[in-house]
């Protein structure tokens, strides 16, 4: 049933272009009296690639969790957050459960903690496949292995049997992406997906996200503190600072003619870093090894 609705919705979204996949307007997140996020606006249409950039504590991740309807307990959202037409501010309950997975899903920063340590990789991928595509038995087994090779994991049979502590950080993130893709969502939310990874691994993961999203015609919301990472695979950028969306526009415009002083600063520092690198378009500075 969810498959049929999903397919229909996807076509409808493209043809009409009227209802945005994700609509965030006037989003505020409170912790009691404290306002952590104020006035964030964002629209994501089918196939869009949007980056959200900002320093730690700028409210990027809270914005992401609000889109998923998964703000941790004492935090409360207000304003409008609609995903596939469902209100995620009020509908954190059953309605949210239907939207999560089928319309929107997420990949998080630290793949070690965002995967179940006591469940084999194969079983973790099998669950969304059986839920969202209704696969069972041998079909399911084949789909699990396909999902693993889709994210370019070597030896899918072995990886499927492994527990996450038995594979490397980059492989873990590929597994997390495979799980997200297995849901066949219309929007993939990637919250700092490369931050916990080795620089050499980062590039591979970004490539993977890039092609996976393009091949499937999905929209992508990429959250990062790294302008190089964001500008590499997104078309539009929202700059956040202190819980506010301060500037939004096409990547080229943000890079060449930033309107805000803060954005200018971000671009300048990113350029300064790039200048030290022999090869252009490699995300970030060389790290000190696995994180």
């Amino acid at each position, binding site marked *: 049933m969810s498959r049929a609705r999903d397919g229909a919705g996807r076509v409808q979204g493209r043809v009409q272009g009227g209802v945005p996949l994700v609509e965030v307007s006037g989003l505020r997140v409170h912790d009691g009296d404290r306002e952590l996020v104020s006035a964030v606006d964002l629209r994501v249409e089918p196939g869009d690639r949007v980056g959200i950039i900002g320093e730690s504590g700028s409210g990027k991740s809270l914005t992401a969790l609000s889109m998923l309807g998964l703000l941790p307990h004492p935090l409360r959202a207000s304003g409008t957050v609609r995903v596939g037409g469902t209100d995620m501010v009020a509908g954190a309950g059953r309605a949210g459960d239907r939207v999560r997975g089928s319309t929107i899903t*997420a990949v998080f920063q630290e793949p070690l903690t965002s995967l179940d340590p006591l469940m084999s990789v194969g079983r973790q991928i099998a669950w969304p496949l059986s839920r969202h595509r209704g696969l069972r038995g041998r079909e399911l087994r084949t789909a699990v292995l396909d999902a693993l090779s889709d994210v370019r994991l070597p030896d899918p049979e072995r990886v499927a049997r492994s527990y996450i502590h038995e594979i490397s950080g980059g492989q873990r993130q590929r597994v997390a992406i495979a799980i997200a893709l297995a849901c066949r969502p219309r929007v993939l939310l990637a919250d700092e997906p490369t931050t916990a990874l080795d620089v050499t691994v980062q590039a591979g993961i970004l490539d993977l996200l890039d092609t996976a999203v393009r091949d499937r015609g999905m929209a992508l919301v990429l959250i990062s503190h790294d302008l190089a990472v964001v500008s590499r695979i997104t078309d539009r950028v929202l700059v956040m600072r202190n819980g506010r969306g301060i500037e939004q526009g096409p990547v080229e415009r943000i890079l060449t003619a930033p309107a805000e002083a803060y954005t200018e600063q971000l671009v300048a520092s990113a350029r300064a870093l790039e200048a030290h690198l022999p090869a252009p378009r490699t995300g970030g500075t060389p790290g000190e090894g696995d994180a």
Partner: protein
Amino acid sequence: MSDPRILGADAGTAVRDAERPARPRGARSLNLVVGGVLFGVIVLTALVSLVYTPFDPAETTGGRLSPPSAEHPAGTDVLGRDLLTFLMIGARLAIAVGVGSVLISAVLGVTIGLIAAFASRWVDDAVSSLLDIAIAFPTVLLAMLIVAWRGASLESAILAIGLAGSAVVARLTRIVGTRVLSEAYITASRTAGTITARMLVLHVLPNVWPTLVVPFALQFGGAVVAEASLSYLGLGSPPPNASWGRLLQEAQSTVLVAPLGAVLPGVLLVVTIVGINLLADGLRDVVDPSSRSGR
């Protein structure tokens, strides 16, 4: 590969690692083997007693308090009944007490603990306060109340010990469950559309379980001791279906004449408790796949 766990990224594993003293792996598997053998002997005795005992437990033909002989390897009791037969039946009862009370504790305790972990703040607070009261309530007193209500029997003892244990299990489950629910993989799984009920079966129970296995095994031992104490106080079932605790009490008056009647049930109790505790210690590795690989 440098191990990211060192950064304390995985709180669950970090806690388990902290609990585990730096001991060679061989020592731990030795625990498992010795514990398994000791406990296995008791379980085997219990199983054999279901199909074979040397005498009918009610048969009084052995002569009063006779010493060990070929016919009665452990001697006889004050009414001339075969002691070995009683000891074998006692093993069966000990296993029944352990399994029964741990089952009651597990079902009740895990359910209450998970409800508290999932529930809103004030339900959690209310349940936790009730649990603290329940834990403070003495097991023996609870047992006496249940015996007064249902009469002295094995079932009453199992019920009392199981109920008393469930509060401890509930509190532990609540703590571990809350921790598991705050893990990133729960949030990640929700983003894939996993609903609460499914989450419970898929991620919460499997991740709570390894932390509970060892306490369950320890509780098994505790239950056997508790039942022995209750029986010693006369709150257990009398012979011919007597537990080791009851045998201890029965032998009390004749301990100077026929010491074996008191020594043997005591030794078997010790074997059971030491066996299950060693087994519990050794089990820790087996139930936790993340500690299985050589790190």
